């Protein structure tokens, strides 16, 4: 049996192969990468019955047009693009079949910023340091270390089971996509380097996601956050979701392709359950922050996990 492929007719703005990321090599300076919205990535995989380790396509802002050379079950989750197969409509957040030689097209995008296309069998690009994720700025992983271009042919893994046996899975789990979301943050780790009122200023937002925003991070414009001991620190590790504040007082939200270390104080960290919601904002959208407790963060994550497991359990 020969695995199929997807041919790129139009690449979209920034379409990259992503899996759950390149973990375990940050001490070598290797960034994690992976999906900006891990929840929607995993949901798309679950909808087609893929294992969690399968690679999807992350589709940012402007979608691609792709031609499939064999019949595949696919699903799209995250940003709500209007989808068409040849001339017919295709559903959001639900598995559907793309017939052989058909074209899947991502059209208008009424809500959200980043969609994930999962294909039964996954996108089969080479594994680099344990991951298929594309890290754009270092050119590592994914398809030739870069976003897709017109004319690329991306190999697919073997479809995991016969298409006739695939159920049309319901879209029971959806991220609350909004153009002005409120995401929860845990204070720190560098709260002591900020003026006492800074954490209130952060929550007085909203911040606007600026045009200088990419997979590494979102530059935000809004209430200024004042340091007490200057903006330079000894470089330190920076988890995804870190709200790093340079001398300007305007925070930068560090996202999937962030470097492994950073040298500015971090006033707070967006909780794991809400990273995907942040990732669904586009330049010009508003993003507000609200401090929560560690217990809130854990229960939110468990709730998301339950949503995903409910979809994964439908077989």
């Amino acid at each position: 049996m020969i695995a199929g492929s997807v041919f790129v007719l139009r690449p979209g703005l920034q379409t990259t192969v992503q899996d759950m990321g390149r973990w375990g090599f940050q001490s070598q300076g290797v960034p994690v990468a992976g999906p900006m919205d891990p929840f929607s990535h995993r949901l798309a995989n679950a909808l087609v019955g893929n294992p969690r380790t399968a690679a999807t396509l992350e589709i940012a802002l402007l979608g691609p047009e792709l031609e499939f050379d064999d019949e595949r079950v696919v699903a799209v989750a995250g940003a709500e693009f209007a989808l068409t197969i040849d001339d017919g409509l295709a559903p959001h957040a639900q598995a559907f079949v793309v017939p052989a030689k058909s074209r899947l097209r991502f059209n208008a995008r009424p809500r959200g910023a980043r969609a994930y296309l999962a294909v039964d069998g996954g996108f089969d690009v080479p594994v680099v340091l344990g991951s298929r994720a594309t890290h754009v700025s270092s050119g590592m992983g994914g398809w030739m270390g870069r976003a897709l271009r017109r004319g690329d042919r991306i190999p697919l893994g073997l479809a995991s089971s016969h298409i006739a046996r695939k159920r049309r899975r319901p879209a029971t789990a959806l991220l609350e996509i909004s153009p002005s979301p409120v995401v929860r943050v845990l204070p720190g780790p560098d709260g002591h380097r900020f003026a006492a009122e800074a954490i209130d200023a952060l929550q007085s937002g909203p911040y606007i996601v600026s045009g200088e925003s990419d997979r590494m991070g979102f530059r935000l414009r809004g209430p200024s956050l004042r340091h007490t001991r200057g903006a330079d620190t000894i470089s330190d590790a920076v988890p995804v979701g870190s709200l790093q504040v340079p001398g300007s007082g305007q925070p930068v939200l560090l996202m999937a392709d962030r470097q492994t270390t950073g040298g500015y104080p971090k006033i707070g960290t967006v909780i794991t359950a809400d990273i995907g919601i942040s990732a669904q904002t586009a330049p010009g959208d508003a993003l507000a922050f609200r401090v929560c407790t560690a217990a809130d963060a854990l229960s939110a994550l468990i709730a998301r996990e339950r949503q995903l497991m409910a979809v994964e359990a439908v077989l």
Partner: protein
Amino acid sequence: MATIVPHTRADVEAAMRDDFRIVPAGDAAVIVEFEERIDPLINARAVAMADALRASPQGGIRDIVPTFRSVAIYFDPLLIEHDRLLDRVRALAAVGPSRPGVATRPVRVPVRYGGAFGPDLADVARFAEATEDEVVQLHTSTMYRVFMLGFLPGFAYMGTVPSRIAAPRRSTPRTLVPAGSVAIAGPQTGIYPAATPGGWQIIGRTSLKPFDLERPGAALFAPGDAVQFHAVDQW
């Protein structure tokens, strides 16, 4: 902070044990911070702690990242209980460095200094009020420590550059620094593993690859390594 004035070995150890704090960085990472300065002994504690954590792997830990003066422990909050992780980290943080500041056999790095390979060597010489040869002499006579990796895959932050040649970053970063460039920024020195924009003062170039996926382990340097540069005329 410890208040003990160290006299005996036990006092010194007690002082070291007290001198850290464990802070959450979101819900999926904790950071163990040692004293806030760049110092080989403090860095050695961070490296030792990272080594100790790696030596007894535990489910749910996704990454362990030693930096200048801290260790970040990334974990899956659904697989590991926060309090249990903290207990373990606390116990390990209390352990002193298992290896001294610079004791490993140095990695030797051949460098072609100056000319087209080191376009900022003249500027560094001006900063040092010395000849280019004297700058090279100072850069090669120092044994450096790898404090941490970051910025790019395989990029090692090394120190400590002799103060005389510790020229600050260029006021305008270069749009493209070639791979293998050996550079100085204040007390730090390093090798660019890949072509990238960069603001450090470029004094030479090496043929060594700091990051190579063909090499087992990929990165040439690890935190805690000793490094010595030496001048060559050809590779």
